[in-house]
């Protein structure tokens, strides 16, 4: 990363710390915001956040590693989380999973080479009566069938232009 880019990132984090406050209870909101903007919480971010909140970097890393919606390594602009809980399984999530893998050319836990999509499992999305369910960023899709997978991905690709504004800052 270029030094200037680091400086800009640092400025951004200082602004976040000022917005949310520099107490420990601000850690989660700050991390969530960084994740939303940058699709990951990088090593440098963790250290700056630790510095600003008077924590040790490893404490920030520890928190990031605990929560499944916070990522150390870069994830795609769209995170597809397919529910794997029993009701969605009973409703046929395995077929949807395979179709997602086929259409994206990646397996669960991976990100497409173009950095657009990450495929992950989720534990109960709370759509048990309408499974299989999947969450794309913060948009929920229910009663997903293998046939619908293509359309959902297309929808994402189309909105990509709009969503990409905040993206591609730190890849």
């Amino acid at each position, binding site marked *: 990363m270029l030094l200037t880019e680091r400086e800009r990132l640092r400025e951004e984090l200082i602004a976040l710390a000022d917005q949310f406050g520099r107490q420990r209870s601000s850690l989660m909101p700050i991390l969530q915001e960084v994740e939303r903007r940058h699709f990951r919480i990088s090593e440098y971010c963790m*250290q700056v956040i630790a*510095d600003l909140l*008077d924590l040790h970097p490893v404490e920030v890393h520890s928190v990031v590693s605990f929560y499944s919606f916070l990522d150390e390594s870069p994830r795609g602009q769209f995170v597809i989380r397919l529910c794997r809980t029993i009701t969605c399984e009973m409703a046929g999530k395995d077929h949807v999973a395979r179709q997602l893998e086929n259409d994206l050319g990646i397996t669960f836990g991976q990100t497409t080479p173009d950095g657009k999509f990450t495929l992950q499992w989720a534990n109960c999305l709370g759509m048990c009566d309408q499974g299989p369910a999947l969450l794309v960023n913060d948009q929920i899709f229910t009663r997903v069938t293998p046939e619908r997978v293509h359309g959902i991905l297309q929808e994402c690709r189309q909105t990509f232009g709009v969503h990409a504004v905040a993206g591609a800052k730190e890849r």
Partner: protein
Amino acid sequence: MKDDLVNQRVRAPKSQTVRTVEAIQYAKARGETVTLTVDGNPVEVPLGTTVLEAARKLGIRIPTLCYHDDLCLAGVCRVCVVEVVGQRTLQAACSYPITAPIEVRTHSPHVRRARRHIIDLLLSEHYGECYTCNRSVGCELQALAMEYGVDFFRFGRLARPRYEIDASSHSVVRDMNKCVLCRRCIRTCIDLQEVGVLEAIGRGNRTKVSTFLDKPLADVICINCGQCINRCPTGALRANDPTDDVWAAIDDPSKHVVIQTAPSPRAAIGECFGLPPGKALTFELNTALRRCGFDKVFDTNFAADLTIVEEGTELLLRLKRALAEGDKSVALPQFTSCSPGWVKYIEHFYPDYLDHVSSAKSPQQMFGALLKTYYAETNRLDPRDVVTVALMPCSAKKFECNRPEMCASGYKDIDYGLTTRELAKMIREAGVDLPRMPKSEFDDPFGTATGSGVIFGATGGVMEAAIRTVLELVTGTKIEDLYEHADVMPVRGFDGARYAELPIRAVGPVPPLVENLFADWDWLRGATLKVGVCHGTANAMKVMENIKAGGRFSQCHFIEFMACPGGCLGGGGQPTPTNPEIRAARANAIYAEDRSYEVRKAHENPAVVEVYRRFLTGGPCGPKSHKLLHTHYTPRGKYIA
């Protein structure tokens, strides 16, 4: 004084466990008592006492694993579960505060089965290679397995290790295959030491104790204090052991292998041979080391005395510039530099204050520098063939002797640092029964030491030694006339951070040792020497923040910092287990040894006087001692590359 430091720095709350302890203490402060029964035995305890404490009071043993006397409570291993009658589930005795007259059962069938299951579960995930483990016999998990009659692996066992061993650090080796996730190291690193290298990473059964982004220990802000090693119940953490290299040097006839022994290991090594804490084996050790094959056995105290003279002179020079010449740029207070853990701590966390740190090397390194120069010359040895070994209570000393700047003579000052535990192993390997060795003296010329050097091992010791020398140099009065038996009581004790004021009422003539540096002491007449002492880097942080905020410690002239709780006697290379009682016993042994010396002031050490006369001819802080006995520091900062 302690109150002055509370809330000095508003730090975010750390592990939840700290707050539990605070809540318990809060209840205790209310002063009410409650009577409970443990296995039918009634006992009255203050409200908020834990079940574990109550049981101990009755002499009832409850097994523990994640509990440690020095640390805040975690309640995570669940080995200490007990039945509290009326409760739906079992409770962890270590963290269950008594708030009502409860009835506790410590070994009901449910409890026994649960403990056995928990031990079985821990064993199933522990890569137990007991034959080859350096903690074997001393391992708390092994002891628990024996206590609970584990005779088979109920839930299987690991066939092969899962993690790579991290041996990147000169000081601490991490083998996470043996980790049982008791998190004592985390609590040590974050809460006790405020260093914050280790934390739990991941969740569920993928949880592991790790460093920032799983980086090698050598690459993170570890200060090498080794306190985590002392508190690890298994062999997951150990010191980086150079004994094979030391044996090789001993076995090489062309090498002249000399060892220096520090006072703290001498006061503790008996624990490795089954003796109770607090029995120093200084002179038995000399015999044992010769039988192991060391060519010469020297006393680190000699170098400690030398350090005091150098560091004391440096302090007087700084004071002269500040007080007599009015130079505002002088960095005061001066900080001690003999604890390598502390040195690395300040390099990382307060790099702006490095000019406060005395440039004097630690005794270990001063000794090494002299051995490779003065000693080699006078004994017509090629410095290349002199192998210097240091017996230290410390794991950070291993890092220190490998610092690139520590070879002013052209040779590594110290080749190998050995911990107390490692030397005990070597002695056992040589078939030597240490406690039954006849006593023998140290070798000349560095065998004479004073009581000043001995007390370096306890918190406040360096300060006391410095005061003895500085006050005597300045006042011309025997220190015994100022403090009874030369015991400078104001700086002793185990409080985390201590502050003392020592008035200088009269001054004397400048003694010959430093007459080329000072014309007179008039500028010190009527002054008050303000000193501080702290141990454990968490306390060091409080003192540093106090200084930053312009508090009382910023007014000090000299502050002793020790990285380890209790000072060197509680060092990361000392025998396990450790707790406040053990450390107090070691301190008693050290102060007893101090009292046994005829000469108890560093500058009166005849060997030190001799070195200045024959070798360090420029005197303390002179050009030669500057080259060999002083060093510089690296501002490392908190950021990890």
